């Protein structure tokens, strides 16, 4: 799972009012190269919760992102490269996602988060 997906995911356990962002527990992180596409990055930028994204990147060991940005950053090639790398090339391979409200752990194995809820969580 990439940070792109982490930034979109939220815990939907019954009764949880704010399930975002899921806290990341790192077991293993892997890097996979992805073709750079500035258009995609520009399209995604407004939808990213930036603070959660920066925190997630730090958690998986990448601290190059600026704490604060506005859309003018999208003019900078240097910024786009970092954004691209953090968004699409870092995978949480093993570990867990933890619901910020309930502490419920969603295990991540082989890069796949198990988001299945128990009967009493639906």
């Amino acid at each position, binding site marked *: 799972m990439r940070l792109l997906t982490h930034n979109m*995911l939220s815990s939907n356990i019954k009764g949880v009012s704010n399930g975002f962002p899921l806290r990341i527990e790192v077991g293993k992180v892997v890097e996979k190269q992805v073709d750079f596409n500035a258009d995609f990055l520009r399209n995604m930028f407004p939808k990213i919760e930036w603070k959660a994204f920066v925190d997630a990147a730090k958690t998986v060991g990448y601290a190059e992102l600026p704490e604060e940005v506005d859309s003018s950053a999208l003019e900078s090639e240097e910024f786009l490269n970092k954004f691209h790398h953090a968004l699409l090339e870092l995978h949480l391979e093993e570990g867990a996602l933890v619901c910020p409200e309930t502490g419920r752990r969603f295990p991540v194995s082989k890069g796949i988060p198990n*988001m299945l809820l128990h009967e009493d969580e639906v």
Partner: protein
Amino acid sequence: MSSRPELQAPPEIFYDDVEARKYTSSSRIIEIQANLSERALELLALPDDGVPRLLLDIGCGSGLSGETLSENGHQWVGLDISQSMLDIALEREVEGDLLLGDMGQGLGLRPGVIDGAISISAVQWLCNADKSCHVPKLRLKAFFGSLYRCLARGGRAVLQVYPENIQQRELILRSAMHVGFSGGVVVDYPHSSKKRKEYLVLTCGPPSVSTSVPTGKGEDGESSSDDESSGDEENQTVCISDRHRPKKKQKITKKGRGRDWVLKKKEQRRRRGDDVPPDTKYTARKRKARF
């Protein structure tokens, strides 16, 4: 196939290691799923600007449908309930991110972030109650409600489905309309029992010029003459039934409900957190046939 897989076992049991591999090694299945996915992507009608989008593949299985999305340059996130199917997807090194999850429990995604969604041959599974705690109607509601929320305004979802019968088709369609989607069913090759395929084409968010207001339509007493028009059946390609809410409801509202009723409904929807246009002196007024 002698019997529908949906009737044999729950999906996470039916699609075990053996079935997942069998499914994904059949060149016939690979080709069919690729064609269905191409068509679904076409019906998504994303802007033709070459910009890659973030798409969702619901019931992504071993990634046959997602592969079509990748080939067209898009990024995607796939959700499936079968670990065995996802394992094959990993083996095939699909480019999308994968989630193990049950669409009937609702999609845990932030509001408004997904540019479009496809689902190929999966949603009819929700019509079965595989566990004592399963109520198909509620699971469909949870699914469509969460799908509606996570899509960007004006975003579309195209779901290719194999309903078992008319009741299932109605149940699925009604559940989608109920959470606020507008849209309808597109049927390809309606006259061929083998090639016939149907797609729910759903649009969310504020109506564009071409799609009239989902709330306003039935509720302001305007009759909807455009429902159930059966596209171009002649050339055997597509027949479209464009509807905004279940037929039954439209019939009732044809006679026209009063302004009070409309105001009440709008208030209810506001409380649910929906985007509802403000009340004005024009609310619930009968419209002229043409502007």
